[in-house]
């Protein structure tokens, strides 16, 4: 097996450097991705959001916690482009800081489910037999819950707070990751190159890490991107219900929730955080769709 490193033209390629076979499939994929207008827009939107999040402390015009009772519930104007909330805090600054929180919740939550899900799915698919049966029955039980309810139940046990939301989101996506990676592993585990590696005396650990995971990771990459979108939506929903970020944290779902009380007099207080959530979720959905179409348009995700 030759180890080749694909040119790091796009972020996802660097993840799969060292993947098997020839470099051409990944090059083809990158080309297909670049030709997909919607995917490129999604990529730029995600890049813009990451930039905003990392520069929030310099570009935010005001302190997101600074209250100013003189400008309570003001609509968008020159001094406050997105208006102010019920404590006179600048909504634009709060939205900018909120970008950090949402991006963090989305990526950390998905990272948790990625690690556990891929571990369970790979073990299950690779070894098969009773281990597979046990793991999959366990996954079935988790799948029996309506997803948002599962996240809600986990947060209600752990208690409100952003860290707990990340854990809840991590747990609730594990079954999906496990199923997808199990399917991908089963698809390749009897291929010749795996048999060859076995015949050469490769240990299970080596085969799993060097051959199985790199060759079954494509659908997992796509799923991760799409799941970040779901995770952000779910986290915002939990915060909206008061189970996530607590005031005065500038979390979008929580901001939207407080705006409910002023819907009639100051609709911008809940409209703008909602638009921000939608923008971020849309970005990840477009990126995920594009990745799927570039990797394998027939992928069932």
């Amino acid at each position: 097996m030759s180890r080749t490193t694909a040119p790091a033209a796009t972020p996802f390629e660097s993840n799969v450097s060292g993947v098997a076979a020839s470099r051409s499939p990944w090059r083809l994929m990158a080309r297909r991705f670049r030709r997909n207008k919607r995917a490129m827009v999604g990529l730029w939107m995600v890049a813009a959001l990451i930039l905003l999040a990392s520069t929030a402390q310099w570009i935010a015009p005001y302190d997101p916690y600074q209250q100013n009772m003189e400008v309570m519930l003001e609509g968008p104007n020159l001094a406050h482009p997105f208006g102010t909330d019920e404590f006179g805090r600048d909504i634009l600054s709060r939205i900018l800081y909120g970008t950090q929180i949402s991006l963090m919740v989305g990526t950390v939550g998905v990272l948790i489910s990625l690690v556990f899900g891929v571990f369970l799915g790979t073990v299950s698919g690779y070894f098969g037999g009773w281990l597979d049966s046990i793991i999959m029955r366990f996954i079935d039980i988790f799948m029996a819950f309506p997803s948002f309810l599962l996240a809600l139940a986990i947060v209600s046990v752990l208690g409100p707070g952003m860290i707990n939301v990340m854990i809840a989101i991590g747990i609730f996506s594990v079954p999906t990751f496990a199923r997808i990676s199990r399917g991908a592993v089963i698809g390749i585990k009897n291929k010749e190159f795996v048999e060859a590696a076995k015949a050469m005396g490769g240990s299970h650990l080596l085969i799993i890490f060097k051959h199985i995971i790199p060759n079954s990771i494509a659908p997992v990459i796509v799923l991760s991107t799409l799941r970040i979108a779901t995770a952000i939506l779910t986290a915002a929903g939990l915060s909206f219900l008061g189970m996530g970020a607590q005031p005065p944290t500038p979390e979008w779902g929580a901001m939207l929730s407080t705006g409910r009380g002023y819907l009639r007099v100051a609709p911008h207080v809940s409209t703008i955080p909602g638009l921000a959530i939608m923008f971020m979720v849309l970005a990840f959905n477009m990126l995920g769709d594009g990745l799927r179409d570039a990797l394998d348009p027939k992928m069932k995700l």
Partner: protein
Amino acid sequence: MTTYAIKRVLQMIPTLIGVSVLVFIMIHSIPGDPARLIAGYDATEQDVQLMRERLGLDQPLIYQYTHYVGNLLKGDLGDSLRSERPVLHEIMIRFPTTIKLTLMAIGFMVVIGLLAGIFSATKPNSRRDNGFMMLSLFGISMPVFWLGLMLILLFSYYFKLLPSGGSDHFSQFILPSFAVGLSSSAILARLTRSSLLEVIHQDFIRTARAKGVKERVVILKHALKNALIPIITIVGLEFGHLLGGAVLTETVFSMNGLGRFIIQSIEYRDYPAVQGTVLFCAAIFVVVNLIVDLCYSLVDPRVKYE
């Protein structure tokens, strides 16, 4: 078919037992002492101990669980700590609201999703297709609680057409079910489009067109019928999504359904109520998926159950 149905029903049992164990473990690891909460913070240690005994919280967990399952089999979900009435009774009061909301949302979802999917698939890669698919991407990305608030703003506050909350009258269900249904319809539209596109290129469609069958008949009778399996699957899965979405929508629209009941029970640490309601929703979800599974052969005679 009957054997398959029986087999599937039997397979449901371990899943449901697993679900009950999971919910039981989860609820019992909630930090805080429900006995102290109910007895009140100024209660003496003796009162709290009495309350603990009354609730059976002083017994070993395994005993509590077997006791719980024993009651479950008798249809007894325990008593709510808040209202002191049976949890099943509390659920049954609120279930009609949630199921009405969910069914109406499914109605919106199927009508909007199917139509958008068919319109897209019949002219793939056209401007119409791109427009619909972009719209559905927006639909998937929209937080359902935000959409609900925007609908209230528009239809209740500005146009004064529909009520913004409550769950007593039919008109109060229109906005919330539209809000939940619309976001799910986006997923359905995408799926309808892709499964129709897969079918539309097959030979029997070309034959039908060559015979001079009208395009509308080709699409609705020949193509759609063959693309129904994935569509039905997603309707079943979305049922769970809608049940979860009900928690948010019922809160936004102040509806007295199961979703809001869960939130209130969590806030009060009314754990028999949380446990019962979550279990109830999961059981419904499992049953709906079973029904969906059994529907496959009705829709597509080629499906054989083994």
